[in-house]
């Protein structure tokens, strides 16, 4: 058990380093750099000398390996540097947006779990009945509907039916919870529907598998009521794979809401990432990717620990 955990823990670091290296190389392959873009407006009037000096200020004149080493050593001390475009410290750029993206991700997770578990269990219990078909169609439709389009449809419906638009300016939760929720519930619903579809399908198939196990038959044979069989025996064992997809989707949501944020005019991490790529803001892109991938890798690790903790069969392997 301990050996396994330590091994899993240590394996996170090569992956993180790989992510760092890949990001570092990828964004430098994108044509153009931040200096060139900043002075693109007055092309010709700025001498090559000034451009070189600017590049030197960001350390872009250094050999690539040294740039990489400087950056990685900084990250190891949790120092992500300053944005190349605005000059503000990265943490200051990211903080509020991270809070926003995190909140939408949490709300979407709640929507997904509340929908998915009852629907998935119901569909599994009534396999191949009309209920099962309805749930499956509902969830396959969820996978098929682009969340950004669903967002547009929500806005349209609110406008046509209630003549009301959700606020387009972000209010932090701690300033006014009501204003905040009025804005963020819509993207959370739009994203949550797709997300619930993934979880519903996993709940259904996990339940189907568990319901066929011998211990369920035993529980039935000894006369246990259906409710207890489901709660104590079936659900408990079927929840592992469901928890996994929910956690992994959650990790992806934090950085993966690029398009939905655009529709709802939310200044979250996704939008920040698109802007950072457009500006070739190397330090900001690197920090964002490390944050998003880091969350994913850590969630993955925590899932593995959780597995070992919940399922004794893994613990003794």
């Amino acid at each position, binding site marked *: 058990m301990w050996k396994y955990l330590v091994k899993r823990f240590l394996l996170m670091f090569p*992956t993180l380093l790989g*992510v760092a290296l890949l990001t570092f190389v990828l964004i430098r392959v994108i*044509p153009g750099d931040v200096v060139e873009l900043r002075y693109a407006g007055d092309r010709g009037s700025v001498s090559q000398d000034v451009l070189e000096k600017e590049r030197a200020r960001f350390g872009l004149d250094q050999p690539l390996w040294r740039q990489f080493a400087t950056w990685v050593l900084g990250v190891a001390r949790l120092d992500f540097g300053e944005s190349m475009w605005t000059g503000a410290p990265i943490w200051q750029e990211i903080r509020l947006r991270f809070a926003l993206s995190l909140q939408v991700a949490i709300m979407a997770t709640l929507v997904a779990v509340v929908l998915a578990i009852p629907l998935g269990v119901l569909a599994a219990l009534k396999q191949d009945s009309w209920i099962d078909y309805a749930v499956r169609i509902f969830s*396959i439709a969820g996978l*098929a509907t*682009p969340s950004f389009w669903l967002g547009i449809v929500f*806005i349209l419906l609110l406008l046509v039916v209630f003549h009301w638009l959700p606020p387009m300016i972000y209010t932090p939760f701690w300033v006014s919870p009501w204003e905040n929720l009025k804005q963020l519930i819509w993207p959370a619903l739009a994203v949550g529907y797709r997300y619930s579809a993934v979880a519903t399908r996993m709940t259904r198939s996990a339940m189907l598998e568990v319901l066929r196990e011998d211990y369920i038959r035993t529980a039935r044979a000894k006369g246990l009521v259906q409710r207890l069989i489901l709660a104590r025996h079936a659900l408990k064992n079927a929840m592992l794979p469901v928890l996994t997809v929910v956690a992994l989707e959650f990790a992806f949501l934090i950085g993966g809401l690029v398009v939905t944020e655009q529709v709802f005019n939310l200044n979250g991490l996704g939008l920040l990432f698109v802007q950072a790529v457009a500006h070739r803001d190397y330090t900001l892109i690197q920090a964002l990717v490390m944050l998003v991938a880091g969350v994913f890798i850590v969630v993955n690790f925590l899932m593995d620990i959780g597995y070992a903790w919940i399922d004794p069969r893994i613990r003794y392997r």
Partner: protein
Amino acid sequence: MAIARVPVPEAVEAAPPGAVARWLAATREFCRARTLGAVGAAVIVVMFAVALLAPVLAAYDPEAVDFGAMLARPSLAHWLGTDSFGRDVLSRLIFGSRTALMVGFGASVLGATLGAILGVGSAYFGGRVDLYLQRVMDVFLSFPLIVLALALVAILGNSIPNLIMAIMVPMIPRSALVIRSSALAIREMPFVDAARAAGFGHARIVLRHMLPNVMAPYLIMLTAFLGQAILAEASLSFLGLGVQEPTAAWGLMLRGAAVEFAETAPWMAIFPGLAISLSVFAFNLFGDSLRDALDPRLRTQ
């Protein structure tokens, strides 16, 4: 497994007789037992027909601007209305199916196939090769699909082949992961040892003996990727980073004016979204039934 190492070379490569008849029978059985899947397949067939016959079916040139008919409501002349340039929405939807299918199939077939080869190779060679390949896959898996695709489009530029590339790359590790776990079981089968004993090369064993045996998970991945690829293309185009104007593409049709004029001209925002949802829905429906049909563990008892 170690006891069963009996070479059975003649059963390895010969194609079974009456393969066509068997396929036909299997197809008939699929339609009968999996109605939902058959409905999905029917929608896919219609979609293909629409894409192939686009110039015949579309009443207007999808790129023709008509300032006399800007933002026209749905009418007999324009069944689904026109957009802010007076372009016929239905004609653009019809031609957009070509873009969706091209990018969808291109990205998912390439991504699933390359992933399958890597996955099978990784399982076959095992040891250090497997370990290193897994670590590289882990790195790629840590990026959300859309983030990696975004970065790749920024590097490659946004022509259609480049879009296919950008959407394909994040799919490779996802396919490799699934295929590898199936291939691990197949590697232990006696026929692989038999092939090795017969002196076949690694490439031949991987490509001709192991790859055909992971067909079931491969097809399941492929149909799932198809829908995802169409959604990814729509998302990128919506952000303005995918297909460029004036080419007809569903995601692109939702961009800009469609949102601005959503209240006065809702047809611009509604129909392209319905087209995306319906096609991805059909692919998922079909893929799901295919999975149920191919995976005996999930059959109703």
